[in-house]
């Protein structure tokens, strides 16, 4: 501070100092907000108490007493309400991951197809986007579930079957299950080793290219390692795997893996719907790359496929990634439409059945909101990291 300033500030009262005043206002606001939330919480507690509504999280330990259609972890009616939360959460995560992967593949294919020189492919891509983007998602879920999948054969013996090993009927898709026998752990280990080896290979190849300019076919070698190493391990250990085939029982198929139609319908609807939006994001991203870039690459004599993968797409990613982020988040939130067709996701199981059996709406709704919030925060975090990696970096 200069002498002048000190003179000025000493003349004024403490509360006239802009800095102090700002601090006071901030403090008042904080107290106000704190009081607001305090009132909400204490009123809620008092109201619930007065109305004789049970509260607290003790119910999570109590026995649930109901069953759930599909669970990735062991579950039956003897497990607790807390467990129903985990079962629902895992089912939500499962359908979200399947949806995100499929939607990304569909989105990129359709988005790139938009630039195809082939008139038919180009128009088909446009038609796809315009159709699926403009129909409400709930309707699409219903379409896949009640119109398409419900039209499959009813009786187990009439199922659509592939080689008497894979069966498809109205109750779901039945596929053989891989059963690991002794020695299978070596194969699993080899997969891990292969993945690590590919990482090292990539790093080494990059370094070599930077030093010498020589390129190394990382993709093909990588694929070779990824499939070759586990295959080798399988052969050496004497194929330590058995297949458990679905067997026709009285009502349905037993054994193997059952993919329930609710999961198929929801995953299909989510990925096809979100895929249309991602396709538009991809199209926007590619169009955002100046045409001069492509022309420059051509004048250097690069192949068309190389231009796409090395010049256009990396630059387009800068536009696409933030859009992808919000599409992924929408997909996770839209997965709650599961409740319309009875897919046992977090919303159906926990906010549906568990809430109704326990009546503890506040706790359950807040827990569920927190979960979707956290899942979407994680998606944001990952996508932001990815976004950083695609941005222009100066060497």
């Amino acid at each position, binding site marked *: 501070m200069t002498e002048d300033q000190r003179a000025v500030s000493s003349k004024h009262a403490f509360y006239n100092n802009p800095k102090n005043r700002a601090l006071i206002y901030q403090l008042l606001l904080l107290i106000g907000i704190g009081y607001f939330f305090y009132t*909400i919480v204490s*009123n*809620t507690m*008092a*109201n*619930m108490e*007065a*109305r*004789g*509504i*049970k509260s607290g999280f003790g119910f999570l330990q109590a026995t649930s*007493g*109901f*069953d*759930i*259609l599909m669970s990735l972890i062991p579950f*039956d*009616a*003897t497990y607790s309400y807390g467990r129903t939360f985990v079962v629902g959460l895992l089912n939500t995560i499962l359908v979200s991951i399947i949806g995100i992967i499929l939607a990304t593949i569909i989105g990129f294919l359709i988005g790139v197809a938009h630039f195809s020189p082939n008139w038919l492919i180009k128009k088909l891509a446009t038609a796809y986007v315009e159709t699926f983007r403009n129909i409400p998602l709930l309707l699409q879920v219903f379409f896949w579930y*009640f119109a398409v999948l*419900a039209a499959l054969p*009813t*009786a187990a013996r009439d199922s659509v079957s592939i080689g008497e090993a894979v069966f498809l*009927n*109205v*109750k779901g898709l039945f596929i053989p299950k891989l059963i690991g026998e002794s020695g299978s752990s070596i194969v699993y280990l080899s997969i891990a080793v292969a993945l690590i080896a590919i990482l090292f290979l990539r790093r080494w190849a990059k370094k070599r290219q930077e030093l010498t300019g020589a390129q190394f076919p990382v993709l093909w070698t990588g694929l070779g390692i990824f499939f070759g190493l586990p295959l080798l391990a399988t052969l050496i250990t004497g194929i330590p795997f058995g297949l458990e085939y679905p067997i026709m*029982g*009285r*009502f*349905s198929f*037993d054994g193997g893996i059952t993919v329930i*139609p*609710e999961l198929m319908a929801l995953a299909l609807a989510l990925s096809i719907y979100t895929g249309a939006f991602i396709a538009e994001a991809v199209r926007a991203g590619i169009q955002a790359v100046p045409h001069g870039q492509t022309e420059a690459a051509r004048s250097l004599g690069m192949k068309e496929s190389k231009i796409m993968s090395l010049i256009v797409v990396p630059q387009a990613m800068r536009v696409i990634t933030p859009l992808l982020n919000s599409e992924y988040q929408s997909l996770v939130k839209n997965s709650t439409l599961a*409740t*319309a*067709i*009875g897919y*046992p996701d977090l919303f*159906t199981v926990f*906010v*549906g*059945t568990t*809430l*109704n*059996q*326990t*009546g*503890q*709406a*506040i706790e359950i*709704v807040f827990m569920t909101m927190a979960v979707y919030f956290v899942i979407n925060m994680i998606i944001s975090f990952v996508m932001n990291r990815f976004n950083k990696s695609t941005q222009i970096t100066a060497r």
Partner: protein
Amino acid sequence: MHKSILFGLATVALFSAPVQADTLEDVKKAGMLKCGVSTGLAGFSQKDEKGSWSGLDVDVCRGVAAAVLGDASKVTYKPLTAKERFTALQSGEIDILSRNTTWTHTRDTSLGLNFAGTIYYDGTGFMVSKKLGVKSALELDGAAACIQAGTSTELAIADYFRENNMKYKVVTFDTSDQTRTGLESGRCDFLVSDQSQLYALRIGLKDPAGAIVLPEVISKEPLGPVVRQGDDKWFNITKWVVNASIEGEFQGVTSENADELAKSGKPGQKRLLGTEGDLGEKLGLSKDWALNVIKQVGNYSESFERNVGQDSPLKIKRGLNAQWNNGGILYSPAMR
């Protein structure tokens, strides 16, 4: 979505400053009774083409409206799924819930609600397609069940299959219509619900004769109207409207002879119909509260036969729901 709005309402209602509940005053002031019913269940609460509601559950709403407002038609119906019903009542969106709801210990003690009697004694049963060739529920090991989500049926069936060491798959839907669609499409092999609902759902099948209801009844499901806890006046009114219709049948009072019996009936009939004593005043209602109920809605027997009994497509026999002196367990406490 509809549900999120409900939860929102519930949260807002619970957040707001504490208020003293007086549902009777609120209903009188509004001149309308807000009644929660099902989204459509033949015989219990269903809407016709003209948009008017009828059914055994609906008659409870009409009865309460007749007793409180003197006019059975002063009811606003709110169709609710099983999942939404309790939240709607807790949040004050409805004044009374009459939606084939099973009276259970947990619901009565932990939801802040009170059950105001039983209007239909029911039990969980099974419906299967005839083609399946199943004669007993014990043959259903490994089969898939369609159930409405958020019901006590979900618990009853889990118990039953566990007791009998059988496995099953459970597909839960939001509405009972969807469970029927599930059975028709073959997604599930059997449908589980309260017996009364099974008969109602069977009528709606494309081929009602192609489905049979199995003989097993695996649980107790007493169905009745529900009100909010902590408003004893309103609780009493609902409870005694239900009793008045049961007592009406017992005393031989019908919608046709009610006026006459009020003038020249036996002392018990006169007391019920308000020409003697002060039963109505004690409830905070007018003298002719029960007269209005029976005149406009009918006694229990009339209501039963019209909606689910011999005069309806459901043709359900009285069974457990007959008067206690007639082989059933229907019994109204003393009207005095």
